[in-house]
């Protein structure tokens, strides 16, 4: 929307003066007039036109009316100078105030300009006042905000400190002064970097440097400080960076909360969790934490040492003088160990009972570990005076010194423990150094006894069968049941590797019963399949089984359950199973024979070989210990002697009416010689290694097929013995 063409053009073109009111109205419609209500604009046009006309009335000239007309335009916001230019042109070309047009125009312009000046000044005045008011308001708000801030800062319960990025402390509030126990002047001007504490968390100062250099916005740490009085105060510190408008770091604000009580409580709880209340020494948990930490990221070639200490005869003290005395003794021992070894930089911990351990971190070699063990013994050399008693206390020590890379924490402790037992066995009051080979053996014993109770339940045992052959025709006469253990860590173990432990632990009872059940069941199965060609089954009885009152009933039950012909079962006992002819066990053996079962003496010749017993026992077979045959020399006098002894044993057995089995027969020559001697049966690698039942079954089946005869039939699968 543009205005009409400039009115001045038309007046310049000499339009009739009667056109003035319309031209004037058109002029006012442009510009500001566009914003006005048409009615208001019409009123303005009418009023100004009237004023301009009035100035020329009565033949005179009234400058006031023309000035008023100019002022009215300004009042109506016709403030654009262009409107004046155009109004002047229009008035000049009009026939108003005849002859005094110039005066009229001048008066109008003066009125407009004066009003505009007033208006401009008034508006400038107004806007300056407004700006002033706004500024005052802003300042008041700022003052209020500052007051609020100051109050917040001063009365905050949390300690607040403000510093510059150079590390100068600029302000500290009351709470912070209280935390530091300091007066304002004590803190002002101090430097943040002076507030180092030896227990500072690693990384706290690195974080601080990053903050003040603008690399991070804030950090949080638990940090200790020295108070003005030298005491330590623990705080939870939050430090933030303040930047200026350009983003450059200018201030740091630290907020500190006093957490000393909480920290001390945590420390006490942690101490309680990791220390033995009786002796104050680190406990098992703490010891293993330290040990495991050692293994976490060891330096290449790092070594460590362990002294596993067990007091000698502590139980006696405890039992005879009472637990209280025992506790006092333990505390005294702990104190001695601690004061003797701590200065050397070693950790002393109590593992429980009368067991202590010394940990040597960064051990320099075996000598250092041994020296530590000697220090332990020396520390305990003098008797411990308690309540008027002078208690002599010694210790046995297992010493282990190894590269960290060579072992694990658990293995190391177990090895040190096993080494300790050697020290005990070798006579107490001494230290023993770890020996890898002996350790390996001890570990297997350890692993066997620990594992065995669950092994039976988990079906880790199984039975192999070794053939006993008739020397006369090489036929399969019997098989001996041999129990094996498929140990999850150690692999398959033979009876010699665990039967001893089984006897010690008593596990032989359930294990022996299980073997009997399995073997009888297997034999009954063969009997069913092969009839008269089924072999006799030989099962070993341990001493403890023989002496067990329930043996006969067990065997009876097993025979019934399996359905095995008792004549197919032969039980092998050792000489040591029977102490004398009137032994309770002899009666049991008779009862077994009454059941139809036969008995054999196993390993004959290795024990007492009491011939008198042989006569009294209801045995029907004798097995000559394998060493008699396998130890035979290649040739010479000794060989002759060996054969003569074997021949004597065979004839002795025959005299007593016993059949004889030779064990350990490993070649055909020996088999032939035994046969010519009249030995009945033989057992050994030459006749077959222990084999799985299926293998035995195949042998039986083969022997029933096309007869190829001879004793040399394949030994089948590789046995484990």
């Amino acid at each position, binding site marked *: *929307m*543009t205005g009409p063409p400039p009115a001045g053009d038309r007046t310049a073109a000499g339009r009739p003066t009667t056109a003035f009111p319309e031209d004037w109205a058109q002029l006012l419609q442009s*510009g*500001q007039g*566009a*914003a*006005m*209500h*048409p009615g208001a604009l019409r009123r303005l046009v009418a009023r100004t036109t009237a004023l301009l006309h009035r100035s020329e009335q009565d033949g005179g000239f009234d400058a006031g009316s023309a000035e008023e007309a100019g002022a009215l335009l300004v009042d109506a*916001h016709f*403030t*654009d100078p262009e409107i004046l230019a155009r109004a002047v042109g229009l008035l000049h070309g009009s026939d108003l105030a005849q002859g005094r047009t110039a005066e009229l125009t001048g008066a109008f312009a003066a009125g407009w300009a004066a009003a505009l000046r007033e*208006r*401009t000044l008034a*508006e*400038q005045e*107004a*806007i300056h*006042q*407004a*700006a*002033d*008011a*706004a*500024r005052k*308001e*802003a*300042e008041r*708000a*700022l003052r*209020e*905000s500052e007051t*609020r*801030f100051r109050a917040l800062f001063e009365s905050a319960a949390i300690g607040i400190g403000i510093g510059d990025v150079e590390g100068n402390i600029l302000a500290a509030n009351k709470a912070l002064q209280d935390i530091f126990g300091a007066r304002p002047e004590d803190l002002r001007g101090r430097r943040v970097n002076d507030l180092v504490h030896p227990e500072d968390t690693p990384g706290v100062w690195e974080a601080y440097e990053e903050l003040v250099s603008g690399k991070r916005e804030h950090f949080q740490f638990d940090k200790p400080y020295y108070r003005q009085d030298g005491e330590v105060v623990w705080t939870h510190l939050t430090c933030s960076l303040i930047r200026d408008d350009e983003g450059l770091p200018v201030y740091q604000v630290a907020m500190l909360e006093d957490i000393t009580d909480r920290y001390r409580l945590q420390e006490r709880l942690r101490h309680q969790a990791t220390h033995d209340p009786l002796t104050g020494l680190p406990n098992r948990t703490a010891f293993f934490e330290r040990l495991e930490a050692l293994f976490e990221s060891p330096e290449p070639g790092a070594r460590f040492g362990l002294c596993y200490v067990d007091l000698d005869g502590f139980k006696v003290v405890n039992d005879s003088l009472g637990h209280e005395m025992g506790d006092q003794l333990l505390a005294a021992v702990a104190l001695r160990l601690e004061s003797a070894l701590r200065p050397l930089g070693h950790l002393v911990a109590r593992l429980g009972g009368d067991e202590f351990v010394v940990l040597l971190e960064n051990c320099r070699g075996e000598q250092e570990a041994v020296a530590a063990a000697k220090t332990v013994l020396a520390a305990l050399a003098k008797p411990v005076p308690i309540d008027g008693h002078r208690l002599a206390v010694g210790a046995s020590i297992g010493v282990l010194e190894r590269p960290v890379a060579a072992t694990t924490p658990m293995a190391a402790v177990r090895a040190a423990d096993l080494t300790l037992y050697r020290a005990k066995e070798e006579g107490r009051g001494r230290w023993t150094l770890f020996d890898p080979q002996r350790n390996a053996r001890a570990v297997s014993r350890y692993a066997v006894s620990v594992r065995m109770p669950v092994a039976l339940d988990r079906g880790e045992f199984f039975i192999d069968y070794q053939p006993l052959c008739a020397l006369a025709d090489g036929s399969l006469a019997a098989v001996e049941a041999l129990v094996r253990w498929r140990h999850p860590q150690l692999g398959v173990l033979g009876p010699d590797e665990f039967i001893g432990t089984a006897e010690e632990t008593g596990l032989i009872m359930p294990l022996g019963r299980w073997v009997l059940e399995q073997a009888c069941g297997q034999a009954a199965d063969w009997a069913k399949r092969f009839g008269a060609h089924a072999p006799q089954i030989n099962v070993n009885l341990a001493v403890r089984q023989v002496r067990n009152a329930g043996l006969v009933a067990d065997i009876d039950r097993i025979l019934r359950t399996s359905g095995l012909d008792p004549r197919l079962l032969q039980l092998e006992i050792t000489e040591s199973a029977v102490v004398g002819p009137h032994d309770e066990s002899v009666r049991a053996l008779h009862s077994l024979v009454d059941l139809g079962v036969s008995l054999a003496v196993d390993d004959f010749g290795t024990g007492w070989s009491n011939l008198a017993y042989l006569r009294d026992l209801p045995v029907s077979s004798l097995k000559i210990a394998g060493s008699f045959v396998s130890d035979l020399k290649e040739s010479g006098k000794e060989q002759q002697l060996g054969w003569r002894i074997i021949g004597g044993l065979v004839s002795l057995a025959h005299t007593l009416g016993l059949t004889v089995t030779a064990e350990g027969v490993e070649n055909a020559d020996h088999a032939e010689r035994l046969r010519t001697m009249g030995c009945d049966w033989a057992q050994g690698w030459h006749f077959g290694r222990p084999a799985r039942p299926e293998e035995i079954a195949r042998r039986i089946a083969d022997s029933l097929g096309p007869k190829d005869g001879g004793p040399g039939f394949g030994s089948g699968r590789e046995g484990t013995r």
Partner: protein
Amino acid sequence: MQQRPPWVPAGMDLDRPNAARVYDYYLGGSHNFAADREMARQAVKLWPDLPLIMRANRAFLRRSVQYLAEQGFTRFLDIGSGIPTFGAVHEIAREIRPESRVVYVDKDPVAVAHSRLLLKDDEHSQVVHADLTDPADLLSRPEVVGLLAPGEPVAVLLVAVLHFVTDEQDPEAIVRTLRDALPPGSALALCHASLEGRPDQADAHQDLYNRTPTPLTMRSMERIRGLFDGFELVEPGVVYLPQWRPEEPATVGPHPERMVGVVGVGRRP
């Protein structure tokens, strides 16, 4: 939620041009400082129509307030009121409804101070220093709460202010928030710089304002129409400034789009 903590006063920098005072200058007023005048002169040099546009805008404010007063409105909420060089809302409304109450809102502390000086003896006019981009805060001010109290419909004026709200500040959401706070029957009068009116000027003009604390975002007519979502538009709908209910058809002129501003009045059902 307030955008800044209550203890931090709004910035007040008289050395930088300010939209309210530049607008005053376009209208021939003297409520301005050197920096404002310099920027305004530069803008007018680039776009000589600006004073005309501002007067057309002022005329729309007058016509829409007159219309609303004639419809019976006596409560007005003028957001982005700036410095009312002439024709303040309460003056226009009271010619028709002498009992009219007006609450003026602006975020510029100087404009607010000016309005307060001007209205210090006016019992029925109040001035609130608040920011449209935080409508929840704006609506929570006691003066606004009082005006919006149930009973009578309220006319909300968003005249030449939403184009100072950036897209990130989400003008649609702001209008929705205001709309939902209005009593039934309330009205919205809106004027917004469009992209279509003078595409040749839009970029340079926005660039100029983007150097001030109040950057300008001109928007498409379609988007401006969308701001009336939830309102029923009164005749003639969303149009260019001079086309909205002109008192005399001749004032519309042959090129209403040259006035760039797009306007409309809507009512809440």
